[in-house]
């Protein structure tokens, strides 16, 4: 009995020991399960999700930039980069096998692809870029492990290199970097969406797996006011003049006076928008739209503003007499005419026709500084035009109000003929448009319409202010007609149409308060004069042979007008009554 009891006791001890061990083991397992399933659930669930759930950012097509007639100037085309995980191609045999298959699908040599992967110490590397949709589909059908396609749409330019600074270009990430591509990036780019799906071991989407998609919103198409033909003509004529006179550059703006629409904006030197070289810093200077960003001293073209102020206030009329002694003195400063001559008894029309500095200074003095600068402001100088383009310059207008200590009477005199005052070509072109538009200064329009998923949004023309009265506008146009009649037909020749014009030849400021021995030749023209349809500003920088605006810039105006007027079906002017 005692022996049995002892055995029982030993057995009980062993049973309890086993139970205890099992119990502890069970408890440890339960505790571990609690840790895994409850305490660390979120972490492991996320890790598991990452292993079999793929989330991609999807972007819809970037909107196109169209000319005013709907011709695409810049549009996006599907293209793909072929990405390879370097780890998947560690084994040379596997790499060569996959590369051979990919080579058949893409046309890229297999050795090139394997060399790229072998030479890079990164998780993933592109082995082929810019694949077409058909090539991408062929790659996708191979279902190779460690290989994926990255959607990288490319921008194509059906019209070639046109309005490059205005349009700008996009970066590798598809975002606009310069020009309208940058300024309208949110409009053109739309919004991105997300695609979440379950994937298999090869990374391919499971047919019956979970899938959710937040669709991307496509970008809007932007219809510009630019006309592709007028733009190309403007570019060609400007380049012709720059080459002929070995100039350093130039700008041309063609404006619809009634609406403020910019039909063409050309700058030279330019860059090739179809293949911008971002690695060459020396090209960066050509990216900016200098007709909008760079201010210059407009020279004698500005006499139009001075004359407008005199006429509109009733201070002078075209026949108001004045005496040209050839110079006017202001303290230590003496203002002389461009030809250093004196013309004796003159009138205001003569001042404008012969472009006499002394006459412009006299008109400005008759108006007085307050009135003169009031009209300078009315024509939009000294403030940005509100074009919406980035980097727009306001120009520099010094007046008794803005610079009471530095401004003097000589500034009034020099400003009257466009020296000591700066403006952008866009400001000058819009002021010219105001003269042609019954005195109404319009806001420049580069965008005509935005066509997006929610419909079409036309941009309405906007009057900034009435700068001068319609009567003053008509009088000034007639005076410009007389000026144009006095420009040699060798330079200004637009058969069938009457033209209003003003030439300009301005010295270039050296940045130290003086002037360089170089000039800016410019020409402001309005056509047809009886019913203005186009206002054209031409500016040619630093021509080497002759500096005169009539000789250098007027032919550009003629070249553009002779091609564009028939193109726009603008009827020729009726013959003059004197039989001319």
């Amino acid at each position, binding site marked *: 009995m005692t022996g049995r009891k002892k055995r029982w006791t030993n057995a009980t001890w062993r049973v309890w020991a086993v139970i205890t061990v099992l119990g502890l083991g069970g408890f440890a397992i339960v505790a571990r399960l609690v840790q895994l399933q409850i305490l660390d659930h979120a972490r492991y669930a996320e890790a598991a999700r990452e292993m079999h759930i793929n989330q991609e950012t999807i972007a819809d097509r970037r909107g196109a930039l169209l000319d005013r007639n709907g*011709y695409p100037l810049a549009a996006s*085309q599907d293209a793909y980069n072929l990405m390879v995980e370097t780890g998947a191609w560690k084994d040379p045999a596997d790499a060569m096998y996959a590369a051979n298959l990919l080579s058949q699908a893409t046309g890229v040599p297999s050795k090139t692809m394997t060399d790229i992967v072998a030479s890079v110490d990164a998780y993933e590397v592109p082995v082929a870029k810019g694949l077409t*949709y058909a090539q991408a589909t062929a790659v996708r059908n191979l279902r190779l492990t460690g290989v994926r396609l990255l959607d990288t749409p490319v921008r194509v330019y*059906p019209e070639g290199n046109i309005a490059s600074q205005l349009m700008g270009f996009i970066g590798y990430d598809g975002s606009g970097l310069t020009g309208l591509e940058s300024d309208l990036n949110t409009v053109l780019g739309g919004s991105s969406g997300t695609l979440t799906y379950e994937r298999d071991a090869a990374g391919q989407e499971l*047919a*019956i797996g979970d899938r959710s998609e937040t669709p991307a919103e496509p970008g809007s198409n932007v219809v510009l006011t630019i006309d592709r033909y007028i733009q190309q003509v403007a570019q060609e004529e400007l380049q012709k003049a720059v080459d002929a006179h070995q100039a350093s550059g130039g700008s041309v703006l063609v404006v619809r006076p009634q609406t403020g629409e910019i039909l063409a904006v050309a700058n030279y030197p330019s860059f090739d928008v179809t293949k911008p070289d971002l690695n060459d810093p020396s090209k960066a200077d050509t990216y900016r739209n200098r007709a909008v960003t760079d201010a210059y001293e407009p020279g004698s073209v500005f006499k139009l503003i001075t004359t407008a102020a005199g006429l509109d206030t009733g201070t002078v009329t075209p026949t108001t007499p004045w005496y040209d002694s050839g110079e006017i003195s202001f303290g230590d400063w003496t203002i002389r005419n461009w030809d250093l001559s004196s013309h004796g008894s003159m009138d205001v029309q003569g001042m404008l026709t012969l472009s006499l500095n002394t006459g412009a200074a006299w008109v400005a003095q008759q108006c007085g500084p307050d009135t003169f600068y009031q009209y300078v402001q009315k024509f939009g100088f000294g403030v940005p035009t509100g074009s919406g383009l980035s980097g727009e310059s306001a120009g520099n207008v010094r007046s008794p109000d803005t610079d009471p200590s530095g401004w003097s009477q000589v500034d009034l005199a020099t400003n009257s003929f466009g020296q000591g005052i700066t403006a952008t070509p866009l400001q000058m072109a819009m002021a010219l448009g105001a003269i042609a538009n019954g005195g109404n200064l319009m806001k420049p329009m580069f965008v005509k319409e935005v066509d997006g998923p929610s419909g079409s949004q036309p941009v309405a023309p906007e009057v900034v202010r009435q700068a001068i009265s319609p009567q003053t506008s008509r009088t000034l146009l007639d005076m410009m007609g007389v000026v144009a009649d006095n420009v040699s037909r060798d330079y200004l020749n637009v058969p069938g149409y009457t033209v209003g014009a003003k030439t300009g030849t301005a010295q270039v400021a050296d940045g130290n308060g003086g002037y360089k021995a170089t000039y800016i030749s410019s020409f402001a023209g309005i056509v047809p004069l009886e019913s203005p349809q186009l206002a054209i500003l031409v500016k040619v920088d630093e021509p080497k042979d002759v500096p005169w605006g009539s000789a250098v810039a007027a032919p550009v105006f003629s070249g553009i007008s002779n091609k564009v007027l028939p193109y726009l079906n603008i009827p020729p002017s009726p013959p003059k009554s004197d039989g001319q």
Partner: protein
Amino acid sequence: MASDRELEGASGILGFATLPLILLVAAMIVGVAALLPLVQSSGATTTAGDITSLQQERDDMQAKLEEEQLKVAQLGSLSAVRNLAINKLHMVTPDDIRYIHVDAPPPSADSIPPQLAPETQPQAQTSNSLLDDIIGLIP
């Protein structure tokens, strides 16, 4: 006795004779029930495959359409038009443009000869009302 036979009969229906049947039916139900998800899954897979295939087809057609649209844009570009005009049609830029001023008003809209004018639809005959007919009879 009758009661025993009834019990026998009952056991014949519910007992040994019916148990395999019940098991068989139950097994079949379970089998069918097990097949249902498989059928559903198969159907879902087929549908998903069809959707993917259709999506692929849609994407293919969309990509082709966009490629064609770009080709059209490139064929209509100024450089292409100029190239065609100069090299194929042998067109040249005129040396001189002359405008002839005609001192007369523009042609009016009805100057189109009648034989060239677009045909107009004959107007439907409108019948007068009885009252109008009666009024018309009054001298």
